[in-house]
């Protein structure tokens, strides 16, 4: 493995749940609960998981958009959560984020050109004279047409907005990109274009990714290492090929079986997860997945499975593996 660019150690993020008129904190949503992984330079790490399992929160906490509850995030040898505001700001261009919801992440009163170009000027990556060219360049790269440059976000379709978000992040030529469902809203053709762009940059510029998605086919295509999240924690972490060839955790298996196949004639056998979906505020005892696991035993109800290292960069948290 290449040298680690980002190291996440025991990251936790709890959101308080407040009740009553005085909004007293009654309990916590453990959105991210003890997550550790590393991403090497030029590596794409795929984060897959149930919706609400804390993927976005993980991404945002890593970039310190919300303050962590516990844990460390080492990036290029610095603990991001220890940096001063100004130090962090200086570091920002090198680690970018593509937001899950493109619309709300765009300032409604800012034209697309400025949205993409402002940070370039701010970090002196472009001059007033050439910023427009640079913006047009990156827009083209992300599948946006030049005439889009003077439009406002609401004048775009959902997919176009997503591309604006990508272009905005890419314009800064980051070393590390957290992409939160960057292609979910895109049609397949553009999707392909973006994924090609991502892998090209990965290869040519050594750009690293934390790629959050639930489209396993996309993840498979881009990522070399994949983490599966369930209810705030990683349940499985493995290199791509191993994971797809031999998923270990029951949840991973269920996920893989649920990917729809673009062929109306094929009907696949899905693993249907039964049982109630638990709440992150009040997670089940023992293995958090046991309420829905087809193979759950009594032990799973009581004992929290350790995130075991199985060697060859494979980790899993399951008693029965």
């Amino acid at each position, binding site marked *: 493995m290449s040298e680690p660019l980002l190291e996440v150690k025991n990251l936790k993020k709890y*959101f308080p749940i407040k009740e009553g008129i005085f909004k007293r904190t009654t309990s916590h949503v453990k959105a991210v609960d003890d997550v550790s992984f590393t991403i090497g330079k030029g590596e794409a790490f795929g984060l*897959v998981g*149930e*919706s609400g399992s804390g993927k*976005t*929160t993980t991404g945002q906490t890593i970039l310190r958009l919300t303050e962590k509850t516990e844990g460390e995030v080492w990036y290029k040898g610095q603990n991001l959560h220890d940096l001063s505001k100004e130090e962090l700001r200086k570091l920002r261009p090198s680690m970018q984020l593509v937001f*899950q*919801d493109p*619309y*709300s992440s765009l300032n409604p009163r800012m034209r697309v050109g400025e949205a993409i170009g402002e940070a370039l000027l701010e970090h002196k990556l472009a001059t007033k004279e050439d910023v427009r060219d640079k913006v047009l360049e990156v827009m083209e790269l992300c*599948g946006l*047409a030049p*005439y889009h440059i003077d*439009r406002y976000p609401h*004048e*775009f*379709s*959902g*997919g*176009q907005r*997503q*591309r604006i978000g990508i272009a905005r992040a890419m314009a800064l030529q980051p070393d590390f990109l957290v992409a939160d*469902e960057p292609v*979910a*809203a*895109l*049609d*397949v*053709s*553009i*999707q*392909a274009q973006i*994924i090609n762009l991502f*892998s*090209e940059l990965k290869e040519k510029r050594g750009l690293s990714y934390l790629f959050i998605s*639930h*489209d*396993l*086919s*996309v993840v*498979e*295509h881009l990522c070399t290492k994949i983490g599966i999240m369930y209810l705030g924690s990683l349940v499985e972490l493995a290199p791509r090929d191993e994971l*797809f060839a031999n998923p270990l955790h029951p949840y991973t298996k*269920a*996920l*893989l079986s649920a*990917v*729809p*196949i*673009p*062929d*109306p*004639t*094929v009907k696949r056998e899905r693993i*249907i*997860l039964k049982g109630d*979906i*638990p*709440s992150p*505020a009040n997670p089940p005892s023992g293995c958090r997945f046991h309420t829905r696991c087809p193979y759950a035993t009594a032990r799973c109800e009581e004992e929290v499975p350790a995130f075991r290292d199985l060697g060859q960069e494979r980790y899993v948290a399951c008693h029965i593996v």
Partner: protein
Amino acid sequence: MEHIVEVKSLKTHFQTGEGVVKAVDDVSFSVKKGQTVCVVGESGCGKSVTALSLMRLISSPGEIVGGEVYFEGRDVLTLPEKEMRTLRGNEIAMIFQEPMSSLNPVFTIGEQLIETIIEHQLVTKKQAYEKSLELIKKVGIPRGESIMKSYPHELSGGMLQRIMIAIALSNNPTLLIADEPTTALDVTIQAQILDLLGQVKEEFGTSILMITHDLGVVAEMADYVVVMYAGKVIEEAPVKELFKNPKHPYTKGLLKSKPIMGRRQHTLYSIPGQVPNLADLEESCYFSDRCESCMDICRVRMPQLREEADKHHVSCWLYEEVVAQ
């Protein structure tokens, strides 16, 4: 099977500084009772605008400038506002593409769910509350009670999307318009939602007009597929026919672009070029710029949508006899 919705030559345009954006231009299609029609197409080609036009929810600077939309025989576009209102959320429900901004930030999820039910059904608040809880559970969100009390900003994207779905399903609509209902969901939940939609369809005979990019979902859900490009329908066919036998070069490109699990390629195929600017279109096949089998006529005249094979319509000069001459 009767038609629930018949869209005839719908035209929706936006007046902008750059000129008139013809987001939907002369679009016709129909949805039959109990059928699921999927609309696919390049992003920005007018799918959402079409859906919004059906609901008559286009707001300034957009305007529906022509066409008819028949819902159960009545022209939705000329219906008085009051009757239209009884349709919305009740007979026709819609799931919006961007759930985060589509829910009112200052009301709780519960309030927003309950009010929809109370508006269209003769139930007490209590009953509506029960029903809401049930819906939340149905769409796969745990801790319904505390979700009812949360505000939209406290939920994850996927959860919001499911709340939107719950709201749309709350009155068992005759027609459900779903604009990318599962994009924010992981596959297990997506499967669950798709199952749910299937169930609803079964149970209430609901017709679904679904907009999606996920060809896997299309393959799974659709009975019939409409492909749009630059504000126009360029191809439509029953789902199996379309996947088996795509005709329009754009459709072919789309199918080719889709990454498929287990079949990894070094680079994915993608259609070259850009969707043309909808504000400044010239008489031609709008796809001609990007088409690999572009002919001279493609650059000067627009092909008509015509039935090519059984129930398979396509709009491409490749299939017009005229060209052969």
